[in-house]
């Protein structure tokens, strides 16, 4: 330490970049932090945060947590199990439906299949707009169309995943190796042959992995679309929260956590089986 201190001037002379940073570089980080904190404070004020409200709310929350223990389904366990089954069905069907519809559309959005920018652009923007709308909003729309119930949930998940899949699939297709496709063309195959025998075998494992991953994450989405009336366990959960049956609420949350963990585990296994351990998408 004394060595360094004694040689301070020497160090300064040798490393001017570290000791004499320009003011703009030194001020950039604090300035950004200041702006970030400034917006935060503005937000806290604008969104009506107050220590008193926070304290009262936390007190209430502690009370609710105590009321939740122990989790207890009462006499509605069969009903909840059925609702959970419904949720899993919604996730599974919705994701599959989305994948089936998205596959042909994603071909239209892939650069190596549709060469024209003008044709590809509207397809991409269309997929983007679908993705910009949350699953819950789609659920609201579908309830207006097919009525309350899990079917609306299936369609909501299918539509919102259609947007996501279209993008992901088209990226997978763009990343595919062109050599196989050229090989098919060289042996006299048509455009459809190129896609069927050159592209599909390459992208199918990737796509299968993504679909499985989405089934996993859709189990989560499917639990919440019930809140707006689209079936599944979310419906039960929202109802029990509204009537303040906290023991049932905690039991339902527990059920959701276990179901999600189970699906995680199963789809993890399946994904490894399909695409191999080395390339988990």
């Amino acid at each position: 330490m004394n060595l360094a201190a004694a040689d301070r001037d020497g160090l300064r002379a040798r490393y001017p970049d570290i000791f004499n940073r320009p003011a703009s570089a030194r001020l950039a980080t604090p300035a950004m932090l200041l702006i970030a904190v400034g917006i935060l404070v503005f937000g806290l004020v604008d969104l009506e945060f107050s220590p008193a409200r926070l304290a009262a709310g936390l007190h209430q929350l502690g009370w609710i947590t105590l009321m939740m223990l122990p989790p207890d389904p009462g006499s509605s366990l069969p009903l909840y199990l059925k609702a959970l089954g419904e949720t899993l069905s919604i996730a599974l069907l919705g994701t599959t439906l989305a994948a089936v519809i998205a596959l042909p559309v994603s071909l239209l959005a892939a650069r190596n299949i549709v060469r024209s920018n003008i044709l590809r652009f509207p397809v991409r923007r269309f997929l983007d707009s679908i993705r910009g709308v949350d699953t819950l909003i789609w659920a609201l729309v579908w309830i207006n169309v097919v009525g309350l119930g899990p079917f609306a949930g299936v369609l909501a998940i299918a539509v919102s995943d259609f947007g996501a899949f279209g993008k992901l699939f088209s990226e997978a297709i763009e990343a595919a190796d062109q050599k196989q496709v050229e090989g098919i063309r060289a042996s006299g195959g048509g455009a459809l042959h190129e896609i069927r025998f050159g592209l599909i075998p390459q992208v199918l494992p990737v796509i299968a992995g993504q679909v499985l991953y989405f089934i996993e994450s859709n189990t989560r989405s499917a639990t919440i679309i019930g809140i707006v009336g689209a079936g599944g366990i979310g419906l039960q959960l929202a109802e029990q929260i509204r009537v303040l049956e906290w023991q049932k609420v905690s039991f339902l949350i527990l059920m959701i956590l276990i179901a999600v963990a189970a699906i995680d585990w199963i789809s993890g296994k399946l994904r490894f089986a399909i695409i191999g351990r080395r390339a988990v998408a």
Partner: protein
Amino acid sequence: MTTAVSILPAQQLAVLNDAYRKAVGRKRLKGALAVAVFFAVMVVAAVGAEVNLRTLFTYFGNFVSYFDRIFTLEDGTRVWTNFGEWFWGWQKWLKMLGETILISYVGTLIGAVFALALNFFAAENTSPSPWLRFTVRRLLEFARTVPGIVFALIFVIAFGLGPMAGVLAIAIHSTGALGKQFAEIVENADMKPVEGVRSTGASWLSCMRFAVLPQVVAGYASYALLRFEINVREASVMGFVGAGGIGQELVVAVRKFYYSDVSAILVMIVLTVFCIDIGTGWLRGRLFGKETQT
């Protein structure tokens, strides 16, 4: 030019052909079995979800006409012929959208701060003790798995209606998601600087501050920006359960069949999400374009 294709004697060929056919047959059988299982699962799921194709066919017209209706003004003309009438409530809606973005911003920032405080305990290489790591990991997992809107439902009862419940719900969910991602960055960090700092007699906290943090802070910011983007979407539906933001307006418009309002609000949401996506993408490129380590 003739090409010589060496053909094996018939006996050997028969054996090989046989083996090949068997192998292909086994593969096909496996494939067929997988397809059969898949369809069986689908049928069970379809029954479980009360899928009714007749309903779909009967009401599919409704779906199309719904979009027809939401793009029609009350006087029967298309919405884009009269922007003033279509976006009649733009001042109110813009304000609600601002609130939505603010909810997402404050929630993300609070979540990021909590994640920052917790992630060193959750990372394999920096956690002071295994049981602490286990506890923090389970906590983060819980915060991440329970959907944000469920937290919002509960918080609305605890903290009262309003954006505060939405902010806290998003903050908790972000803590869970960011905590995990941050911990993963820390696990990939180089441990040599930590050894260097520790060899000078520094405490655990100083090790984290001076050896780990400088390596990971860019990755943190990048993930936090991504999370902000996701949270804007999430915040747009918080209003469905009374937790503030544009969702409130949307749900009222949908339930009361104010058709053109629905499309106007949806268009505004989609545009906002686009702008936020592009904005954060640009910012990430500006901030970390040159030095993306993660």
